Structure formats: structure tokens, C-alpha cells
């Protein structure tokens, strides 16, 4: 994983491109961007390891990231893939702050990483920014929960 030192304005510009940060106040955007950094991954490069401390969350700027779990006897099983504009990881929000899945790049990918400790501190100290961030996280969590429920339905075995 390559961390690319970048000037803050370019991170703000990157965040502005994505719908998930649409409508968030400029001050909050600056505050989140202040500690963030760019990350670039090559295919099959590991972004998140199950069980490791969840020390950041990420926004996919380009590329595709697979959420995987290792199943004994089956190896790595991809559960879902995420694309540009989608957030990776919410274990940083919930105790005990450890990842529950692996995240691996499928294609060359560029992401913005937000350090979890700074983000948690900002959420606790600035409720406007905290609400702004969480109200953007929640729709993605709900969308992915619904998609998982649909996967459980197993659409195509219902075809007659």
C-alpha cells in the first residue's frame, strides 16, 4: 500500500467529487481532510486484515475493492465489491474497533484514508461534523444491508 503525500486542497477536491460528501459544510470537509491521506493499491494488495485494529476508514476514489472473508476449506470468499464513491469500513465506529473482514484491491485503486482516532475525536468534539458524517455513513450502511438481504433471497433460484 502506497501512501502518497498530497496537499490538503487536493483531498478536499477529491471529497467534493463524491456524492457521499455532498452538502457537508466546508468547515467540516476541511476538518476531515486535515488528517486524511491518499492511498493507492495494486490488484490483490490487502487494505484491511480481519482482526486487526480498525485504525481508519476509507473512501474509494477509483477502482474496485472486494470485501472478503477467509473460510476454512474454501479459502478467500468475496462477499461484495465496492466501487468509487463508496466507503470502506465502519468497525472504527463500533467497539472493539477491530476489522471483521478483509478488504483487498481487485483493480488498481485510489482511496482517501481517514485516521479513525482523529475522526472519533472530531465526532465527539464537533457534533455538527459528527452528524454530517454519520448521516452520510448511514445510507450506505442501510443500502449494503438491504443488498445483503437481497443476496440471501437468492433471486435466481426463484426463477421458474
Amino acid at each position, binding site marked *: 500500500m502506497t501512501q502518497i503525500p498530497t496537499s490538503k486542497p487536493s483531498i478536499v477536491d477529491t471529497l467534493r467529487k463524491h456524492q457521499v460528501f455532498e452538502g457537508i459544510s466546508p468547515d467540516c470537509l476541511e476538518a476531515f481532510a486535515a488528517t486524511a491521506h491518499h492511498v493507492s493499491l495494486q490488484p490483490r494488495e490487502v487494505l484491511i486484515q480481519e482482526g486487526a485494529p480498525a485504525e481508519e476508514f476509507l473512501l474509494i476514489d477509483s477502482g474496485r475493492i*472486494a470485501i472478503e472473508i477467509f473460510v476454512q476449506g474454501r*479459502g478467500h470468499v*468475496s462477499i461484495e465489491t465496492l466501487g468509487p464513491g463508496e466507503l470502506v469500513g465502519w468497525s472504527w465506529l463500533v467497539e472493539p474497533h477491530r476489522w471483521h473482514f478483509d478488504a483487498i484491491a*481487485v483493480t488498481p485503486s485510489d482511496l482517501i484514508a481517514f485516521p479513525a482516532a482523529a475522526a472519533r475525536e472530531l465526532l465527539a468534539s464537533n457534533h455538527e461534523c459528527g452528524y454530517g458524517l454519520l448521516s452520510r455513513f448511514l445510507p450506505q450502511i442501510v443500502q449494503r444491508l438491504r*443488498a445483503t438481504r437481497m443476496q440471501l433471497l437468492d*433471486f*435466481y433460484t*426463484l*426463477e421458474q
Partner: protein
Amino acid sequence: MSPVWYRVHRVRRETHDVVTLELTPPEGAPPCSPEPGQFNMLYVFGTGEVPISISSLPSDRGELVHTVRGVGAVTNKLIALQRGDVVGVRGPFGRPWPVGELRGRDVVVVTGGIGLAPLRPVLQHLLAHRKTFGHVSLLYGARTPYDLLYRNELLAWRDSREIDVEWTVDRSSGVWNGNVGVVTRLISRATFDPERVTAFVCGPEIMIKYAIEALRNRGMATSNCYVSMERNMKCAVGFCGHCQYGPTFMCKDGPVFRFDHIEPLFQIREL
């Protein structure tokens, strides 16, 4: 309407339970010129008759192409047919996809499972007249990588860069490098202008429901969404009532419907 006896000219195995049949008409048979979205009734001697969508634009020689998934007595016989076997054909029946209304518009095709078959002629038409349309996207879902239909065509369509092609599977295997997740997840990532897009949706009814919801969330009007529905069609000409869907008959009023025309029926459980 009596069946015309077509001969199986070619059998192409798509997956473990899906085959594509190319059927040749007998000499002197009346021309069968189906439009994308229409279906024929295919009759297997001694077993029965089933509605099967046309899965390719008709050739000049009048050949018909049908992709069949083996799920019952007749379809399991159909997927076991060999070159030279004979099958009865009645049709074409039903309302087609309104491809004539797509001129100048973006098009998004959302499909899952065997639902790609009735949309394949639409994609062939879009590619044959590519400059006539705006941005075109195909979003296709299958259960596993082994269930993907028309693999070579999917790759060719994607590599042509004439249309955006994305496919996804609900369940992956170790060697799979593509998207994983339900097909409706691809809708939020697709490129189209909600003001000038028409959507064609075909797949299991539950998939259609969630696809329409995702299209609506992108700002699309349901009057620009068309869906292909399926019921137990028997006579195919609106007499027997087997395929009645509220006040409509699938066989003659469908299978393709503008979604806002059937939306109230869609809300009724067990219909």
C-alpha cells in the same frame, strides 16, 4: 394456430442448465419475424408446449434463436435436444420492447439470470444502430460466475467500448475477479441522465421490484421503465386466461409493460 416444425440446427450449451437452440424453418414455411421481447411457443412432441423468448434478432434465412433454462418437464426436454431434432413453433406473440422509442435517449438495460435472453436482441439492435442512441449501459447479474450467459458476447460488448457493460454475481468463487453483489447495486454506479434515459428490466419478479426502486432512487420516472413479466402462458392469444395478470393477459398485453401501467398490480401480493 398450428405449430410449424422447425429443425434444430445448432445447440450451444451456455451453462449447466441453459442451452441456446438455433432452429431452421422448413422449406416454404411462412416467415417468422419476431421483434425483441416477443416470444414463441415451443412444442416438444409428447411432452408439451412452453413460452420461450426470442434471444436473437432473426436472420435473413428465417432461423430462430431461443435460450432455454431447464426447470420443468418441457424445458428439460428442450435443453436435451440434439442437432437434427424437430420442435414445434407457434408465434411470435406478445408486445415487444419499444426499441423504436429509444432514438436519442440514454438506455440502461438491467437484467438477471435467464432474463438476459429476451434482452439480447435489444442489445444487438442498439449496437447495430449505435449512433442513434445516447449512453447505453448493460447491468447484468447472475447467481455465480458459472451461471453467466453469453460470456463471449459480454466480453466482446465490453471490449467494443460502444456500451458500458457491467456484470456481477451473488456468490463468488476463489478465481472470480469481477463484481460481487446483487445487480441492483450496479444501478447506483451506472452512467446515465435520469431525465433522458429509458430502462429495460427483465429478471425474476423480485429483482424487478428492487431494480425499479434503485432506478427511481436515481431520479428516473417509472413511465420510462419497461419490464418483461412472466406468467403461465398456454394459448398465447388471450383466450385461455392462464396468464391473466389483473385486467391484462401476459401473452397479448405483455410480456413487456411500461412499469407505471402495471405498478398498482405489482403491489398486490400473490397476484
